[in-house]
Structures are given as C-alpha cells and as structure tokens.
C-alpha cells in the first residue's frame, strides 16, 4: 500500500540536499538546486530565497500545463481502448509527493504496449502532437503550448535485456491518484524502472530530483522481497543494486534496505570503484559514468553483453520491430568501441 508523504521530505534529507548544493556550487547553491529539480522541495521545507521562489512558481505553472495535457491524452487513449501506464515524474508527482508541483519535470512519460504504439502515436497526432525525436524505446512528442510527452513502447533502451512485459506491468499497476484517472507502475516496479532509467538508460547521469524520487519511495512501505524478486525476474539486479547504492551515496537513504542488502553483491565492481573515488564529493555522482561503459558493467555476463551489443548495433523501435541496416550498425559499432576504450 502506498502512503502519500504528508511532509515534502524528512528534515535529514533536506539537510543532505542543502549540503550537496553547497558542495556542488558554493557560490550559487540555490541556482544549482533549481537546475537539479529540487528547488520546490527546498522551498517547501522553508529554505532559500528568490531563485528557489522563482523555481517553485515555475514548477507550479509547468505542472498545471502538464496536468491538462496528461488528462487529455489519457482520456484519448482510454477512448481508443489503448491501455496506458504513466511513468516517472508525473506518476511519482501524483502518488508520492505532497503536491505534484514539488516534483519538477520536463515532460510526461506514458508507456503503451509495443503492439499498440503506432495507434497511440496516431491518437496523439489527432490531439495536435508532433514527433520531435525518436528512440528505440519511444518517441518524444511536442504538444500545444510547448508541452513534451514521451510515448514509450518499452521502459528503456535494449528492452530485450530486461524482460518486462507491458501486460504484466499493467496487471500489477496502481491507480494514478491525484484526481486523475489513469494507471502507474506499482511501487516495486517503480523502483525497478527508476533504477533502470538512472543506471542503464543514463549511466547514472540524471538530475538529483530523480534520485530524490527514490527517497520518496523510501517513505512508503516497499516490499523488499517483492522488489528483489521483481529485479531478478526483470534481469535487472545489477542496475537496481547499483542505483540503490548511488541513492545511498547521494542522500544517505535506501528504499527497502533489506532489498538493498540482498542485492548488494550485484553492484558491479566498476561502479563500486567509481563511487569510492568520488565519495569525498558525493555530488559528483550526478556526473555519472560514460554511458557505454555503464551499460557494459550493468549488463554483466557473456549472454547479456552479447544481447547488449546486438541491441546497440541493431536497435529496436517502440512498436517492437527492429532496424537491420548494416551500415548504421557499422557506424554504431565504431562509436561503441571508441566509448569503451
């Protein structure tokens, strides 16, 4: 069961965030905090001056715009009979933050089944959304008013590495909450996704606000054994273990400490060495690792690495199909080798 946090954040976490801001940018900690997406949280905790005030107001306005479009898009998907799951920022903002505007976000993320992706894209086109950028796991759309939506057919790139079926995720999903009619991942699946997103998708290079999401989930009653089982079933023990370790290194909190302990052995040695290296300046964890190297470490094992290689050279599309151009594969292979050196 999820309990929405009554307070924005525990005082100890707020102090930690202030310390990170002061360490990362001693001259302009408020500006740094705003860029890292934690401005409204610090403001709600009674901290900061004009810059945080501005970021809080901006977040409030941005949230209202996103909420209008989220409601509209979910209604349109529902009318078209397309099941959808709201992911990441919007889902967390509605379910785990005292007020959605405390969780700034740049876009809305929605997941549909790969087989329904094209149809969902057409629904968005009918609402005047246009494709801006396409990737393996989804495409970024721009909507009226400059709002952004990422329509996912998979949770992350190289989805073949992490067997997370849409129907399973939907069956386990929770109500979105916050007065909006929709679905979100349940708490344990959310931790798995956040971990994959931070660690695998971005090589740990995400804003601090996205790591604070883990802290908000830590405030809820996560089922540690279920989390471990989900991570294992998804082939995601390494990314989840690594992400939880980085969260602890940054914020001093661990969602589901029993799960983190059970998964600790799966933190890749390379990630441990990196964390130890930057430990005196924990904000440097936000710089992340070179993406190819992070993915190589997180894949682990010959079979997974072979799949990672195949997925990188011949990436899939959001609708589940796969690109097979040999020339593009050659170019990707060359880039990959350069990044791994």
């Amino acid at each position: 069961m999820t309990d929405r946090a009554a307070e924005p954040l525990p005082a100890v976490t707020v102090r930690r965030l202030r310390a990170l801001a002061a360490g990362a940018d001693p001259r302009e900690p408020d500006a740094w905090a705003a860029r890292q997406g934690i401005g409204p949280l610090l403001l709600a905790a009674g901290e900061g001056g004009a810059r945080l005030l501005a970021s809080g107001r901006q977040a409030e306005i941005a949230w209202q715009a996103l909420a209008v479009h989220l409601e509209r898009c979910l209604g349109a998907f529902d009318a078209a009979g397309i099941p959808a799951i709201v992911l990441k920022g919007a889902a967390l903002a509605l379910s785990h933050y005292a007020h959605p505007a405390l969780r700034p976000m740049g876009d809305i993320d929605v997941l549909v089944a790969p087989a329904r992706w094209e149809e969902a894209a057409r629904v968005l086109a009918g609402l005047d959304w246009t494709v801006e950028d396409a990737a393996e796991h989804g495409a970024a759309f721009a909507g009226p008013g400059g709002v952004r939506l990422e329509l996912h057919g998979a949770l992350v790139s190289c989805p073949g590495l992490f067997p997370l079926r849409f129907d399973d995720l939907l069956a386990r999903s929770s109500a979105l909450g916050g007065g909006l009619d929709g679905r979100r991942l349940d708490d344990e699946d959310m931790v798995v996704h956040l971990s994959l997103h931070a660690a695998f998708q971005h090589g740990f290079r995400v804003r601090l606000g996205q790591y604070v999401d883990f802290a908000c989930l830590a405030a809820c009653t996560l089922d540690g054994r279920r989390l471990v089982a989900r991570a294992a079933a998804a082939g995601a023990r390494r990314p989840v273990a690594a992400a939880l370790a980085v969260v602890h290194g940054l914020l001093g909190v661990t969602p589901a400490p029993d799960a983190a302990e059970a998964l600790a052995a799966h933190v890749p040695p390379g990630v441990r060495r990196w964390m130890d290296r930057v430990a005196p300046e924990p904000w440097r964890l936000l710089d992340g690792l070179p993406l190819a190297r992070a993915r190589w470490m997180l894949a682990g094992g010959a079979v997974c690495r072979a799949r990672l290689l195949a997925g990188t050279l011949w990436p899939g599309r959001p609708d589940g199909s796969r690109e097979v151009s040999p020339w593009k594969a050659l170019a990707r292979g060359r880039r990959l080798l350069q990044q791994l050196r």
Partner: protein
Amino acid sequence: MSSPALADVFVRSERMVGRRIAQEYVLVPILGKGADADGIFNLNRIGAFVWEQMDGRADGHAIVARMTQTFEVEAERAARDYLGFVSQLLSIAAVSAALGRGK
C-alpha cells in the same frame, strides 16, 4: 478583427484550458501546432478575474463595472486595461466574439 470595444461580448476559446493557481490563472493551449500554439500564458489576479467573466454573455461594460467594484479602480483605467487585455487574448486566440453578440 478590428480592435475590441466595450459593447463587444467575448467567450473563452475551447482551444485553451484555464487552471487556477491561488489568485492567478494559467492558460494552456490544447489545440494547435507550432508557433501558433507555443507557450503557456500566465494571468495575474486581475487578468484571472476578467478571464472568468468572459462567459459569452457579459459585455465589456458589465465586466468593467465589476472590475471597478472588485478592485477599487477608476472606471476609465479599468476600461483601458480591459480592452488592452482583450486585445492580447484575441491575439493568442484565447477568446472569440460570442455568436450573435457584438462583432
């Protein structure tokens, strides 16, 4: 369309959704592509009040009268502000002339 007049009646466009934040309003375009629909519009306290009055029935005279009562502002100033604001709303297609009333 020519400049708005106080006798005109305007109605909020279906292309915009308004959301109240405390005493202010955010106008969110929900239709339109590219530059025509780019940006979210923030109305201050007085703008929010006028926006809520534009129901397709009240003309500018009635709205200005309500503004002078609510905000204790002179009628001439209220009329000037109202017309300037309506011009801005027209330029972003946030309002349109009510059918059968005004221009």
